[in-house]
Every structure is written in C-alpha cells, then in structure tokens.
C-alpha cells in the first residue's frame, strides 16, 4: 500500500512538474485558438482542423462513429482504429499552422449523420490539454 501511494505520488509529481515546466515557459508563446469542422458527403466524413499559430508539437484528430459502423478507408492512411471500429484517430507530428483535412469512408453511409469529430493537442507554452469538438458543417 505504501509502495502504491509512493508511486501515485511520484506520478502526480511527474505530471505536476510537466505542468510547472510549461507554466515556466509561458509567455514565450501564446497559442491562438484551434478550430475543427465536420462535414459529410454520402459515405464520406471530412474533418477539417485549423492548426493554431504557434503550432503544437503534435495533435490527435478523432472521429467518433456509432456502433456498427465499418471503416472502409481513411485519408491520411495512417490512423488508429479502436477495437470495434467506433473511433478513428490520426496522430499528426509537427503540424504546420493552417488547415489539415482528414477523411474517412464509412459504411453504412446513413451512420455519417451521427458521427462526431474532435481535435486534441497540448497548448504550446503551458502544456495544457486542449480538446476542441468539431462543429457540424
């Protein structure tokens, strides 16, 4: 029990020190707001992400689908598809400021209407986790 508490404390300290680290460097860069929009076209889902300036070191774009949806293809190709196929994720390293588009072709097309999208990244400067839910377009 003591060991578990020590490990928990150590983990908290580790995470806290990361927060401190990025808090220390705050002021050197102020992140602008990111943005995400989700649109559908028959069996295609388009997630458009606006990367803020300064850009984060990496970001994860995500599509959440209703149960029973099959992922036919994704673009960019490299994507993490959770077991069950209900979540598609793209990890983008060193994204440039601007717009990045992600597409997934699904089946049945009717499920596209109930899909949702989001983008997650750590804010440059203070390291806080930012999660932006995509607006439906």
């Amino acid at each position, binding site marked *: 029990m003591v060991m578990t508490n020590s490990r928990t404390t150590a983990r908290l300290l*580790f995470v806290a*020190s990361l927060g401190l*680290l990025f808090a220390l460097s705050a002021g050197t860069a102020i992140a602008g707001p990111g943005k995400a929009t989700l649109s559908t076209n028959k069996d295609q889902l388009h997630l458009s992400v606006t990367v803020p300036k300064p850009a984060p*070191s*990496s970001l994860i774009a995500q599509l959440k689908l209703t149960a029973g949806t099959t992922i036919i293809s994704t673009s960019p190709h490299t994507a*993490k598809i959770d077991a069950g196929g209900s979540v598609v994720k793209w990890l983008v390293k060193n994204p440039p400021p601007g717009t990045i588009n992600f597409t997934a072709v699904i089946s049945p097309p009717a499920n596209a209407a109930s899909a949702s999208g989001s983008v*997650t990244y750590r804010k440059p400067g203070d390291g806080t986790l930012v999660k932006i839910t995509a607006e439906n377009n």
Partner: protein
Amino acid sequence: MSESGYPSGQVMIKIDGARIKAIREARGLTQLYIATVVDVTTDTVSRWENKRYPSIKKENGLKLAHALEVELEEILDTGNDAPGETGPEPEPPKPEQTATPEPGVAAAQPEPEPARKRWYDKIGHFGILLITAGLLGGGILLYSGLKPNPEAVELSVTRIVAPHFIAGQPLPVFLHIDKATGKPVSIILKEVLPPGCRLNAAVPPLSGSSAGEIKWLTKVTEPTFFFYTVITDPSYSGDLSFAGIVKNGLTGDTAAIAGDVKTVSGLHHWGDTDGDNRISDEEILMVYDLLSGDTGQIIDIDQLEEMWLGDGYVWDPDRQTYTIME
C-alpha cells in the same frame, strides 16, 4: 612561436592575456566561470589575463578556448614578448587541493620584485590624493555593482524523469532551462548519474563526462531542453536518484536542478505515466512535446507510437521485449 616543449613532455603555449580578458568581458563571462570550466582558481585566471603567467599548459589553453567559445589560435600570443615574460605558469592549486607540484612544472615561486624606487616617492602627495579619490570612487562603483541588478538573468532548471522505468531499457531524463530574458547566457550544467546506471546518449552532445558525472558547457538564449538517457543492467531493481547543478556564467551563481529526483524500476514503460499498460492520447502527446528534434532519434518513438496504436502492452522481463496488444 606560441608553443614550446618542456622536459616533462608537457607542451606549453603563450597566451594573449589582454585578448583573453577582452573576449571574456565581451561574452559577459566571469572569471569564476572560466576558472570552473578550466578547473583552476580565479587567481590563476586573473594572472593569465594580466600576463603574469603568459605561458600555460596547452591542455589548459584548450579548455580556456573552449570556455571562451573560440579557437585556441585566437587566444595565442603571436607577437614578440618582452624579456622576462616567458616563464611557465606555476598554476597554484585550488585551496582545497593538495599542493603537489606537477611533473616537469616548476613549483610556484614568489615573483621577484624588481628593484624600483618606492612608489610614494615617485608619485608625490598629489598622486596619493588622486589614488585615494580613485579608491573612493571605485568603492562606490563596487558597492552599486553589488546591489541586485534588475536585469540579471536568473536561470531555473527543472528535471523531468518518469516515475518508473524498465531495467535494461533506456530511460530519458529531460532538463528544461527556463530563462527570463532573451539575453544569451553561458551556463554549465552538471548531472550526477545515479549508481547502477550508465549514460546511454545525450542531446545536445556533452561537453565532458567523467565517472558518474556528465556536463554541458553552452550558451542559452531561450527556454531550452537538454536530454540524456541512462540505462541499467536488465537485472537492476530499485530506485535511481538524480542530482545536478546549473552554473550561471553571467552571475556566477550556482543553483541545484529542481524537479523530479527519483524513479523506480518496474514493469511499465516510462511513457506510460499512469502505469495502466496503455499509452493514452495525453501520454503520446506529452512524449512528442518532450521528444523534439534530435531527441526522437535516441528514443524508440516508433515503438511508443505502436503502443499508442495498440490496445495495450505487456513487458516480458525474461525475453526483454514488449508485447503489444492489437
């Protein structure tokens, strides 16, 4: 001719003290900083600059050039020396060191006082008055210089190390230097490696290392990451405790490195901070925040990404491999 051999085989070089002083001051470095880097006393540095020891060991000359961030040739005396200025430096040991003369180097001798007229006979009363006024003025300047300088650059260094690691696998240690202003500051960063582990890699490259200690000597202009990895024997079990200091070349101040100190061996990847045998979105984003530039080549980031892509991982200590669940 700026290089000469001595009977011991020790190569001596002639240095340009005035140039050394000018470079040091132009770079905002203190004599203490130079002394620390070269591993001599501040008195020795002062003597080098004032041409009282115009010849020094080449080894020290190289360290001196490194500390001044110039090539050795830039601090060599290329002109003709005045007679009597070519004696080798005695380089007195630091107070805490044993006063053992180096082989082939003459032990420190009191400098001979040349016969001269008594100084106060030469300058007269008016001169004494001028010197007194100068001393008073200098004292005032010194006093004002000792007061806290609001523009002084204060450095803080934070160590980031995961709460756990797997024995036999590289463990990254991140040192983050935060700096308040954009003014370049020379620093010495030293880390003492915990017993039971050895250095695996470092970014940027180290300026020096000895048994159990690593060192960077560099200049920082903005918040900067220093990074190194250590590795233990696969059979290692227990804690690793880290300690280190940062020396500010501008102020001469030394401060302990703050942040994480201890990590414990276990069965979880260092990137799996919550120890749930999965690399979550937040964990992979955090790792990419820390591993930027060259650091990604030292750590197997692809393996970590595979863990994130998978549904979890398990460490097999017997096979020394991860099994990633699909």
